[in-house]
């Protein structure tokens, strides 16, 4: 019996939402391959915090709470995950393609000497073989692959694989001791700075409102922020306004920024350069507000409004706020 190893990312001792996504994707693959799912949790775990993961189809949840793993370190966490993977005859080891997952999966793959596929959006089992789909060139093209190895390490793009509980599933939680070479834990996180009042990160947001050059002035981004607030969205930006210094680079959506897949993406005053479209065209619903009816953003928009962003966006905010109060 082979196993799918699902890395369940923790933050401050609690599972992040991507942990459930990875468990659910692992369960689907395991069903296709006739395998079992082992969830791996590394680092401090709050009392009872693993309970919310037990119903997602895993057979076992394995917690590694070594004293040297209290803060995240690529090398320490990689040693822990590699040790579990090597001892559990895996068919695949799955990570979220989060900040931690991308960093860690690369170390783990190199450590165990198995191929890596990152930021995948499609996982299928066909004829008993795992087929993996991932966007390349920022989503301009889509690659489907198979693995020419006994197993592989795979990271999954957040917000693509839906978390689904499995009827009757009840994973056991066990604690596992690992032997770490502490002389090889050389880069350590000494401090975590969360932005105060920060909303959900762009890569994990259900709603995003992005502004571009059509906002005309950095001060006009207050319009974007108010629209975002009205629907509980995270603020994004086009490369043009990031390069102009209007917004921080962490807000940038597109090929040299973040790739996002929200339920609703509102593009305000963004023309839709190919490198921007690459980063957001997998959004479920896209709204575009732009004065140029020929702007490429309208080619991907579910709903388009041709008009001055500085007038239409505040009217939209007002209408949404009014609708909410009714």
């Amino acid at each position, binding site marked *: 019996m082979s196993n799918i190893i699902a890395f369940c990312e923790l933050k401050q001792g609690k599972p992040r939402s991507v942990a459930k996504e990875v468990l659910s994707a692992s369960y689907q693959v395991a069903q296709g391959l006739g395998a079992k799912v082992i969830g791996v949790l590394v680092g401090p775990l709050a009392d009872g915090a693993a309970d919310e993961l037990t119903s997602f189809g895993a057979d076992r949840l394995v917690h590694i709470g070594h004293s040297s793993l209290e803060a995240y370190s690529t090398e320490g966490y990689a040693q822990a995950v590699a040790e579990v993977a090597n001892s559990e005859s895996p068919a695949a080891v799955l990570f979220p393609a989060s900040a*931690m997952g991308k960093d860690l999966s690369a170390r783990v793959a190199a450590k165990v000497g198995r191929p890596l596929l990152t930021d995948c959006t499609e996982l299928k089992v066909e004829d008993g073989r795992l087929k993996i789909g991932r966007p390349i060139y920022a*989503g301009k093209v889509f690659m489907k692959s198979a693995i020419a190895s006994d197993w592989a390490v795979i990271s999954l793009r957040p917000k693509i694989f839906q978390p689904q509980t499995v009827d009757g599933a009840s994973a056991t939680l066990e604690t596992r001791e690992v032997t770490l070479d502490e002389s090889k834990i050389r880069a350590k996180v*000494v*401090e975590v700075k969360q932005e105060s009042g920060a909303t959900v990160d762009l890569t994990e947001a259900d709603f995003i409102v992005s502004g571009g050059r059509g906002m005309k002035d950095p001060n006009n981004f207050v319009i974007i922020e108010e629209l975002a607030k009205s629907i509980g969205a995270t603020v994004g930006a086009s490369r043009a306004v990031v390069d102009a210094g209007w917004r921080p680079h962490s807000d940038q959506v597109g090929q040299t920024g973040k790739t996002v897949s929200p339920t609703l993406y509102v593009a305000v005053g963004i023309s839709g350069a190919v490198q921007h479209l690459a980063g957001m065209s997998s959004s479920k619903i896209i709204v575009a507000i732009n004065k140029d009816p020929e702007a490429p953003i309208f080619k991907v928009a579910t709903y388009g*409004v041709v008009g001055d962003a500085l007038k239409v966006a505040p009217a939209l905010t007002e209408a949404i706020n009014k609708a909410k109060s009714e």
Partner: protein
Amino acid sequence: MLKILLLLKTVADSEASIRPTSDGKAVNLSDINFILNPYDEYAVEEALQIREKAGEAELVAVCYGDDTATKTLRTALALGVDRGVHIKGQPTFDPLATAKTLAAAVKDMPFDLILCGKQAIDDDSAAVGVMVAELLDIPSVSVVVDLDIADGKVKATREIEGGHEIVETALPCLVTAQKGLNEPRYPSLKGIMAAKKKPIEELEAAAIESRIETISIGLPPARPAGRIVGEGVEAVPELVRLLKQEAKVL
């Protein structure tokens, strides 16, 4: 003197329209403008700034690729890198194979610090840098937006969801650069002239087979056709109605 290695890649311009080849097995890269990977620009700039601060440092740029690598290396040399190493070969879509080739090429080169971009904007794996570090048995910090090196100690700020992590380590180490690390400069005319005289060493790439088998490369799934709801603020009520009743997202 601090020795810095730069791992660079040549990629298709981010503005380029990318299409699959007619057999659906590869990417059509004819008539495409190739550039130095944008994230690698931040790595090069950081190396230049470290040298300016320290007064001296040796900067060596390593590029694994076909003949397009020469242009990438000349760009780095024009910016002020001292010399180039061209690892001749064709990287695949298997990041571990690429990392093994790079690690084999640089393992006997002296270095204190390796810098590269956080990802190449073609296969978007965002993995090769960290893999090279593991293969060379050195620590790494990825997706770095602030880097401070003093007396062999390294303090790096890496971007995470909604915040940052401060990571401490020591040289030798590998750092992957994220946008925001610095503001890359343009090459000067003097730099471009000087670059022509700087040496580029050629090495044959170690033959590492890809273990990622391409089934197909195609266009992304097409989006269902959208519609223009209307013009100006008059269209707002209908837009809100559609978002609530049709799309059911509000």
